[in-house]
C-alpha cells in the first residue's frame, strides 16, 4: 500500500466559521496523505470537523487556508462549476440518511450518476445490473425508495456511490441510521465492494466497530489530527 500513489493529499488545511463576532476554528492546519486503495476511518466527537473535512475533500466546501489535492487534482482555485464537475467524476457519496432521490426508482437512482457522467445507455444498464446484483437488490430495480428498508436504501446508496467508478468514496456515518445487524451487513458489503474495486475510502464515524474495518483510523480533535492508528 505504501507504494501506491497518493489519492488524497491535504496540506495545512484550515477552515473557520463565523457566528456573529465569534470565530470557530473547525480545522486548523490539517496535513494528511491517503494512498490509492486505502480505507481510512475518521473519528472524533460531534462538531470535531469530520463532515467539514469530507466536504473539503469532495470540493463541496473550500478551505480558508491550505490545499486539497484529490486524484492528482489541486482543488484550490477551482471554480464552482469545475468543482461540480470534479465531484461528479471523482467522488462517490454514502450518507447517513441515504439521500436517494424519492421520485426515481432504484435503477434510476443508480442511472442518475452514470447519465451525469455521460456513460452510454447500454453500458449504463449493464453496470446497473452488475451493481444491483452485487448489493443483492437486483429484484428491486423498479421499486421506489419509500418502499425499501433502511438497509436496502443504504445498499442502493452504495451502488450509486460506486456506479461511476469514482477515485474516492466518502461515507458519513453510513451505518448511523441502521440497527446493528443491518449495519454489520451494510458495512461488510461496503468493505467488500470498495476493496474489490480498489477504491479509496474515507469514512467519518463515531463507531469503533466501523473504524475497525479500515486500514487506518484518524482521530480529529480541536481541529487537528490528534492520533492515527494502523490496523
Amino acid at each position, binding site marked *: 500500500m505504501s507504494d501506491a500513489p497518493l489519492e488524497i493529499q491535504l496540506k495545512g488545511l484550515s477552515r473557520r466559521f463565523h457566528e456573529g463576532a465569534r470565530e470557530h476554528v473547525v480545522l486548523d492546519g490539517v496535513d494528511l496523505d491517503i494512498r490509492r486503495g486505502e480505507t481510512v476511518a475518521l473519528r472524533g466527537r460531534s462538531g470535531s470537523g469530520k*463532515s467539514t473535512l*469530507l*466536504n473539503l475533500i*469532495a470540493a*463541496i*466546501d473550500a478551505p480558508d487556508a491550505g490545499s486539497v489535492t484529490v486524484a492528482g487534482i489541486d482543488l484550490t482555485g477551482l471554480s*464552482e*462549476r469545475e468543482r*461540480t*464537475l470534479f*465531484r*461528479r*467524476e471523482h467522488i462517490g*457519496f454514502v*450518507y*447517513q*440518511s441515504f*439521500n436517494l*432521490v*424519492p*421520485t*426515481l426508482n432504484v435503477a*434510476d437512482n443508480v*442511472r*442518475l*450518476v452514470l*447519465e*451525469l*457522467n455521460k456513460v452510454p445507455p447500454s453500458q449504463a444498464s449493464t453496470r446497473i445490473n452488475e451493481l444491483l446484483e452485487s448489493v443483492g437488490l437486483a429484484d428491486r430495480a423498479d421499486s*421506489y*425508495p*419509500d*418502499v425499501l428498508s433502511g438497509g436496502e436504501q443504504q445498499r442502493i446508496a452504495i451502488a*450509486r456511490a460506486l456506479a461511476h467508478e469514482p477515485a474516492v468514496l466518502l461515507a*458519513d*456515518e453510513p451505518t*448511523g441510521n441502521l440497527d446493528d445487524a443491518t449495519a454489520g451487513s451494510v458495512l461488510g458489503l461496503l468493505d467488500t465492494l470498495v476493496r474489490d474495486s480498489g477504491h479509496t475510502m474515507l469514512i467519518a464515524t463515531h463507531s469503533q466497530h466501523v473504524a475497525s474495518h479500515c486500514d487506518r483510523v484518524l482521530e480529529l480533535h480541536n481541529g487537528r489530527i490528534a492520533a492515527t492508528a494502523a490496523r
Partner: protein
Amino acid sequence: MIPVTYRASFSYLLRHPWQLALSFIGIGVGVAVIVAVDLANASARKAFLLSMDAITGAATHQIIGGPRGVPEDVYTRLRVEHGIVSIAPIIEGTIESDNTSLTLLGIDLFAEQQVRSFTGEARSDDQVASSDESLFTDFLITPGVVTASERTASQFGLRVGDRFEITADGRQQTAELVALFADDSGALDQVIVADIATVQEWLGRTGWLSRIDVRIPDGDDTALVALESALPDGTQLLSASGRTRSTAEMSQAFMTNLSAMSLLALLVGLFLIFNSVNFSVLQRRKLIGVLRALGLTRRQLLSMILVEAGVLGALAAVVGVILGIALGEQLLDLVSRTINNLYFRVSVSNVSIETFSIVKGLIAGVGAALVAAAFPALEATSYQPRLALTRSSLEHRARNAVPKVTLIGLVLMVAAAVLILVSGNNLVAGLAAVFLLILGFALCVPLFVKFSSALIAPLADRLGGISMRMAVAGVASSLSRTGVAIVALAVAVSATIGVSIMVDSFRGSVSEWLEQTLQADVYTGVQRGAMDAALIQAIRNLDGVEDLSTRKRAWIEDANGRTQLRVFDMPPESYVGAELLDADPAEAWPAWEANDAVFVSEPYAYQNDVGAGSTITLPTDHGPRSFAVAARFQSYDINASGIMMSRATYARHYDDDSVDSLGLYLVEGVEADTIVAALETLTENWQRLYIVSNASLRQASLRIFDQTFVITDILYWLTLAVAFIGILSAMLALQLERAREFATLRALGMTPTQVGGMITAQTGVIGLLSGLASVPLGIVMAWVLIKVINRRAFGWQIDMNISVDILAVSVGFAIGAALLAGLYPAWRAGQAQPAIAMREE
C-alpha cells in the same frame, strides 16, 4: 401571553417570510377584487339612487304619459279643476356642455315647495341678504337662466353670473348661471335646473311635461283614488320609488355578472390559500408530531391551525380591503361609463365606502382562509404522535385520495348540469352552476395530472434524459404540492378561455348582426330629442339620396317597467335588415305594416316568454292596448326591452310624429362620403346631428362593444395574477421541501444550471398540464356563459364559435406563466448547497 404552542407555530411562518407573503397576497388580491367590484357597483347604484331620490324629493308618486310625456294641460286641470295642490310639473332631459352630459330639470318654482326643497334654496351671494323673490323673478322673466349645485358649478369652473354654451336637442343654446344651491352629498352633481318654459323650449317640447310629481300622505287612499280617477287616458299614476327601483334594476344583470367575475378571483384565491395553508401544515408535520407527543390534543392542534389561518386571513383581508378601495376607484370609472353607455345616466366621482362591502370582503377573506385551512388541519390532527408522516406516505395518501376526489368532482359537475336544467331562467342559479362546474372540474384535475404525467414521462426521458424524467415524474409524485397549483392555474386559464370564447363569439354574432341590420348607406340623427321636420325634408331632397328610413326610439312605461319602442318607417327593400326568427317574413311584414302587430326582440321574447302568435299589452296614449306579436327578431340590446313597431301603428296609438334618426339609401354610384359632407354643410347652422357612414357606424358600434368588456379583461387578468402567485408559491414550497434532494443532486455532480433546468422543465410541465386541463373546462365554461348566463342575464342568443387561436394562446400563456413563476424557484434550487445533503436532520 401567546401560548408557546402557538408561538412555535407562528415562528415557523415568520421564518418563511416569502411563503407568508404569498399567502397574504393571495388572500389580499382575492378580497381586493371582490371589494373593488362591490364598491364600484354599489357606488354607481347609490349615486343613481341618491340622484333619483334628490330629484324625486318628497314625491311619493308620479304621473307619467306616453313617449312624448304628459300634456301640460293635464297639470293645469288637476290643479285648477280638481284642486290638487301637492303636485309639481317637471320636464327632464339630457344636454351636453363641455363634452359632458348633464341632466336638465325644468321646474315650476311656485309648485316646487310641495315636492323639492333644493330648487327653491338656490342663492347667489347678493341674494342671501335679499329675498327669495329675486330668483323667482329671474326664472320668470329672464330666458336661459339656470341654477346648479355648488359642486357642479365648481366642476365646470362656473361662477354666478357666468354664461355658458349647452347643446340641447342638437341645438346650441346659451345658459346663464344665476344662483347656486348646496348639495354636499353630490346627489345633484351634473344637474342643471331651469324654469319649465326654458327647458321646454330648449328640448323642443313646448306644451309637454316629462311627468308630474305627486306627494300623497302615506295611507291616504282617498286622495290616491281621487287623483287616479281624475287622470285622462294615456296617463298613469305610478309609485315614485317603484320607478326608481325598476330603472336601477335594469343594470342588475350587468352588476351580477361583474360580481360573479370577482368571486372567480376569490375562488382562485381560495385554491391559493388552500395551497399555502396546506404547505405550511405539511412542512410542519415533524413539529406537529412532536407537539402531539408532548400532549397537544387533536382539538388543540385543530384550533391552533385554524386560529393561525384566521389571523392570517383577517390581516390579509384588511390589506385586501384597503387595496380594494383603491382598485374600486379605478373600476368605478369603467362601471359608470358602461352604465352610462348602456342603461341610464349616472354621475359618480368618488367611490363611496359601504360598510356592507367592507364586511363582505373581510368575511370572504377570513372565511376563505378558514375553509382552505380546515382540510389540511383535519388531516394534520390524524398524525400519530412522534410518527410524523414521511413525504412518501403523504404522497401515497394524496395519490390514494385521487379517485375519491375525482368522484366528488364528477358528482359536482352532474349537480351543475341538473341545476342548469331545473332552474329555468334564474341567473343566480346559473352562476351557482358555473361555480359548481368549476369546483367539480378542479377536483378531476389531479387524476388528469396523474395519468398525463405518466404518459409524458417516457417521452421526456427520451428527449432530455433522466433529469427531464425526474422533472415530469416529480409533478405527479409531488401531487400533494403540485396538484393544487395546477388546479389554480387551470381554473384561471379556463376562465380566460371561457370568457374569451364568449366575448369572441358575441363579437362575431354582433358583427354579423350589424352587417345585416345596417342596410342604409348613411345614418344621421340626434343623440337625444327629435330631428327638425323641415330638416328631414331637406335631407330627403338632397341630390344622391334615393330613399330614406326613419326611426324613433320611444320609451313607454307602466307598473311593470319601461319598454323601448323602435318605430320604423322604411322601404320594403330594407326589411332584410331585421332577422325574423320564428315567422315567415312574407306574412309577418305585411301584418307588421298594416295591422296592430309588432316584432319583439329576442331578449324581450326570452324575458317575457312571448313569440310569434302571442299577444302583449302596451300602454298607449289612449290607455292599455293589445298588440299581436308577429315575430321575434334577432337583437343584442341590453335592456331586454326592444319592440319594433311600424310608423303607421305607432301613429294610431301615440300622439307623436317625431323622428330621431334617418337611414339614407343612396343612388347607385354616389359615395357615402359625398353625402356625409353634404349633410355636414346642410345641418351646420340648423341642428347638430351625428352623421356616419355605414362602415363608420359599424366600427363605432364594435368599439363600444369592446369598451364594455374592458372591465371583464381587467378582472380576468387579476384572476390570472392570483393563479400566477399560486404557481410561484407552490414551486417555492416544493423547493423548500426538496432542499435536501436538490443538495444531493448537486453533491452527485449536477450543476446549478442542470438543477435549475430541471425545475424549469417541471414548471413548464405544470403549465402545460394546467393549459391542457383548462381547455375542456374553458370550452364548457364558454358554453355555459353563452347559453346559460348571457341568455338568462340579457336574453341574448349568441352563436358559439370556438377559435383555435384562443385555445392555443391560452395553453401557451399557461406554460409561459408557469415558466415565469418557476424562474426564481429554479434559480434558488440551483443554489442548493451540496453540504446540506451531508448534514443530518
